[in-house]
């Protein structure tokens, strides 16, 4: 094919456009922040926050479950924004961001779906409640799994990016509708257990916020790692090395 001297990568395929500013140092920052916050969170979750009168010790999983949910949702919002940005600008780095956020989002959402039953079983005796939020997360999980599977079926990177972007946009716009339908469906099949958050006592709220902060750092760290892998892949493609 072409000799290296002749091939002049165009636009967003240029190495400097792919590598981006020193992502390595920021990644280390997120990583350290996570490592610092995680033991703090665990300590607060087990010792600082008061025990729930009704639910007992099992309620403490709330401090993992709820932050996971928030961050999972944040991840999919990133997919949405990155997808729109990709279609608008055509810059490949937006696709890398979207794909990375989707994968990281699936990790967090899986966490939600695992901690949910872990919480439900000791407290309410069942593994699954058709709680509208949990149900919505199940649907979200499925949508983003289909996003990842779709990507596996499209070998050509630019086409893959376009298809993913469309699915990313459709998937996210579906979220409120999924939530509404889960909620209305549940109100027709009411269950005794309520997973609503009411007013949280101060200490619980603080612990929760620490949890959200920790998971945000974890998200940023994982996203950064995954994105650098995506960029490396793109770089190797440029150099003609088989993936």
């Amino acid at each position: 094919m072409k000799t290296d001297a002749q091939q002049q990568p165009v636009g967003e395929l240029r190495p400097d456009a792919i590598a981006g500013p020193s992502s390595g140092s920021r990644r280390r920052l997120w990583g350290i922040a996570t490592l610092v916050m995680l033991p703090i969170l665990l300590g607060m979750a087990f010792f600082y926050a008061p025990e729930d009168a009704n639910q007992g010790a099992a309620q403490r999983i709330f401090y993992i479950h709820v932050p996971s949910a928030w961050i999972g949702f944040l991840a999919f919002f990133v997919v949405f924004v990155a997808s729109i940005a990709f279609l608008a600008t055509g810059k490949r780095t937006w696709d890398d961001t979207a794909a990375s956020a989707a994968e990281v989002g699936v990790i967090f959402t899986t966490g939600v779906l695992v901690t949910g039953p872990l919480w439900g079983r000791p407290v309410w005796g069942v593994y699954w409640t058709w709680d509208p939020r949990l149900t919505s997360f199940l649907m979200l999980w499925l949508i983003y799994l289909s996003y990842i599977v779709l990507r596996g079926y499209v070998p050509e990177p630019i086409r893959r990016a376009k298809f993913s972007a469309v699915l990313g946009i459709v998937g996210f716009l579906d979220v409120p509708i999924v939530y509404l339908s889960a909620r209305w469906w549940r109100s027709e099949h009411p269950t005794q257990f309520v997973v609503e958050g009411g007013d949280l006592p101060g200490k619980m709220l603080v612990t929760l916020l620490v949890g959200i902060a920790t998971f945000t750092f974890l998200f940023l760290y994982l996203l950064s790692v995954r994105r650098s892998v995506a960029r490396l892949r793109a770089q190797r493609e440029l150099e003609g090395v088989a993936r």
Partner: protein
Amino acid sequence: MSWIAPALSIAGKDLRLEMKTRDVVASVGLFVLLVVVMASFSFPTGGEGREGVAAGVLWMAFLFAALLGMGRSMAIEKEDACLEGLLVSPAPREAVFLGKLFANLGFTFLVELVILPVFIVLLQLHPGAGTWLVVGGAFLGTLGLVTIGTLFAAMAVNTRGREAILPLLVMPVSVPAMVAAVKVSEAGFSGGMADGTLSWLLLLVGYDALFLLVALVTFQFVTEE
């Protein structure tokens, strides 16, 4: 150039093609009919509250019908670069999308209108005054399915998995519309609007409108090489 005229030409072409080959309706129609008949064996006839379960089975059947039909319809366009023929014409991308949408809607709805009476008879349902609700709900739910499905079918045929991955793409995203459609059909089978049926209908309308808009805007990205 307007959107509607080319869209109707495309839909008309699909209809003519279908009348000649009976490709889609035959395979899809028969399959769905079999599903319905087999499902009705697992029902206690004349049981209480079977309207809800019936609605669920009905929409599973409609979902299969829509997925098979849309997959086939787009696969036909892929042969001999016919889809490229549409894209290279002066017709706007939106018109091409609408044309395939109308065609898919037509086929699926045709299959549904055949299946419905069979279903009602086999399961001894008495919709009575709720029949309009059943038909209306079928239309709205199908519209949502076919809107998303046509968009995704255009993607699917351009992947390694071809139209086989269409169900994988459509099903997660269409769950809320399916839930709403089932609820509306259930009410219809039970005789008329129940509490909350209006909300479900509005959800369907919202879903259809939102994704029709999204599909019209994003179709060009899906079809450009």
